């Protein structure tokens, strides 16, 4: 799927073997995997540059590409996790490039279970647009579980947005308070925790609904 990688494949933009001719004649082997896991679709929304792809990469591969950062990440990444003793496949979708094309993103929202709104805590603008994203884009908010992720918490000194009273009003309007966190894709602060928490909240919510 796009650049879809399962967790064992690490995306390497510069991998030399990619330049060799691929074997197009390769026939598809239909081996059935018996594992029937629960699938959770998570989409990452937010301004460009807030670190959506990095968060995804940090969570799935525990990597932060400071050296050469690929311009685009994978379209989605999957990770198998255990949430409350339930095997879950997290499928995390990156929406990079669609920030300016509102109608294009709509296809994502249908069928997603959870929507992580990512903002950069050093950029007030990214925080504001998260609010408008939520309001403007999602037509049926009750199909979603919303969480808020404030990224780049490693850059403490220029923090603009992190005033709890400013964050609160947003949380009031349908964002899952308990799983909204401040994270850092760079050093991994709270990233795993945030995604696990998000998965748990979504699952609980689904259980409640069903």
């Amino acid at each position: 799927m796009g650049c879809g990688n399962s967790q064992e494949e690490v995306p390497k933009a510069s991998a030399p073997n990619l330049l060799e001719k691929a074997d197009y004649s390769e026939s598809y082997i239909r081996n059935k995997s018996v594992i029937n896991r629960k699938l959770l679709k998570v989409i990452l929304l937010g301004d460009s540059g807030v670190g959506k792809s990095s968060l995804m990469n940090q969570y799935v591969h525990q990597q932060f590409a400071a050296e050469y950062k690929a311009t685009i990440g994978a379209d989605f990444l999957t990770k198998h996790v255990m949430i409350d003793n339930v095997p879950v496949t997290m499928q995390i979708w990156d929406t990079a490039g669609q920030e300016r094309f509102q109608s294009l993103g709509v296809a994502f929202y249908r069928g997603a279970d959870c929507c992580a709104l990512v903002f950069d805590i050093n950029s007030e603008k990214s925080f504001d647009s998260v609010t408008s994203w939520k309001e403007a884009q999602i037509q049926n908010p009750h199909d979603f579980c919303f969480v808020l992720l404030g990224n780049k918490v490693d850059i403490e000194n220029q923090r603009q947005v992190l005033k709890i009273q400013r964050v609160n009003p947003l949380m009031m309007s349908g964002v899952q308070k308990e799983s909204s966190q401040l994270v850092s894709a760079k050093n991994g602060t709270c990233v795993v925790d945030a995604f696990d928490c998000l998965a748990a909240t979504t699952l609980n919510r689904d259980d409640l609904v069903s």
Partner: protein
Amino acid sequence: MRPLLRRRSGCYIYRSSPQSLPRIMFSFASITICSSSSYTMSSPPTNRRIHIIEEIISTEQTFVSTLETLIELFLRPIEAQNILPGDEKVSLFGDVVEVYKVASSMLRSMRRVPASELNVGSVIDESMERLKTYASFCAITVDLQSRVSSLQKRFPSFSSFLEDRKQLSQCKNAELQDFLICPMQRLTRYPLLLRKLIEVTPTQHDDYYHLQRAMDGVQFICTMANSILARTSHSNNMNRVHSLFEKKDAETIDLLSNPTRCFILEGDCMVYKKGKQVNVRLFLFDDILVMGKRKDVNYRLYKKITLLYVKSHSSGNSSQMRKEIVSRTGSVPTTDNPKHIISDGPIFVKGSPSFQITTEQEHSLELLTTRFTIEKLYFTTKEEKNRWHNVLRRATEIHSPKEVRKRGNSRERKVNNLPTQNAMRPLRPIKKPESESETAKCESDSPASSHSNDSPILSRGKDRIDAERQQRLNGLEAQLKTSRASERALKTSGEMLQSRVDGLEKLVEALKTQISTMEEELEMLRSTIGGSSPATASAESLSRVIDMNEEAVYYILLFRDMKGGEL
């Protein structure tokens, strides 16, 4: 050996094996280059260039193999086993084979030469015409989820087929829907990749010119895809709501008559009619709120409310609100305010505190009607109530719907000038870089335009430069044209606003005259009372007595309260 860390100075720390200590090496090339350049340029640009080009190739490869999977694992079996009828198959898969052909031919061109010599810009630029297929393909993502599930219901074999596919390891947990939005994903990634590549490409590079063109082209296609999607989903929504109502009611609502009407939100709520609870579904548009009552599969019209802005009273109560409505509906002839004719009933009153009475048990919103009845909408949760309150308030705010519409209009207008249906019409001739044809700048504020302003400095022949200047000139002219068009659009919307303002001013005038007549009346009454007739005198003494009594009552109550407190 992989650089572990890069410093601003161009100093690299290399580690040859995990065991050895880091050794520090200096990259002289980067020292000379980065002395005056920014951080992003600090690594040798050629290396970064190659990195990005390799990224473009590798992601293109993944994209192509994804499409292969989609075709081989989904489309071909469905065709072979006749799982879906032909038209359903076409509407679901669109022109995916064509998209695949474009992508794979692009990939082949990219692989023809090593990455270090590859001119990605020319490759993409040459395929620009064919890339437009992506934009039309994007239209299939509209309501994809619901379409797939309705197909699953209608064709059980399709449903079991999809279930079967889920088990395949090649699908990597992705479903058909996920595969189908891939071309859209890929399309929106091109501008990101190209922007990065342009940043590290020297202006005198052979490919620089083509990169710019490619950038403009893909951005244009993205915009095109976006507007195709917007229009498709908009008309889908309108038609859907229209068809939800019974035929007679649908005619009464007359949804489709207003081409600029925007769908905003729908949801469920409850109302009480003669003490009986009625479940209704709300359909909010930017100018009306339609309430439907479920009947079998369809809806019957319960009420159609035209949204009207009424000034909020910060400390207002319902009687004050009523006064305002009396004055407005009483003093303003209905012809001046056509909204009243259409509305024939309720209007929404922008939320003053008294109009969002909510206790912990009930989550309700109140709409005050011109018949002075209050339409109370009960929602299941507080969140839901707040959401509707916000949305309704925004919809009634006088400028916002107009602004939304204006934007929509100008976009639509822009699109109408462009080839959308016959997407294959050449945007500009290919393989003719020197051509003096128009370079349609799809978005004047895009970063691409700022790039194109710093044109190649170094000369590659006078003719070429001249041609490029000519082209820039043409581009600017095209920009000017679009700006003029948007100016016109702004003017018309300005006129609409002006007419609304005029209407309001008339209203204010009418109110003023009413106030003055009332004041005159009051004066007259005062003057008749002001006479020193015995009746007035007795009335005055009476009122004095009443005042004293009231004061006494007040003190008595106060005293009682104090006593109560003591007890």
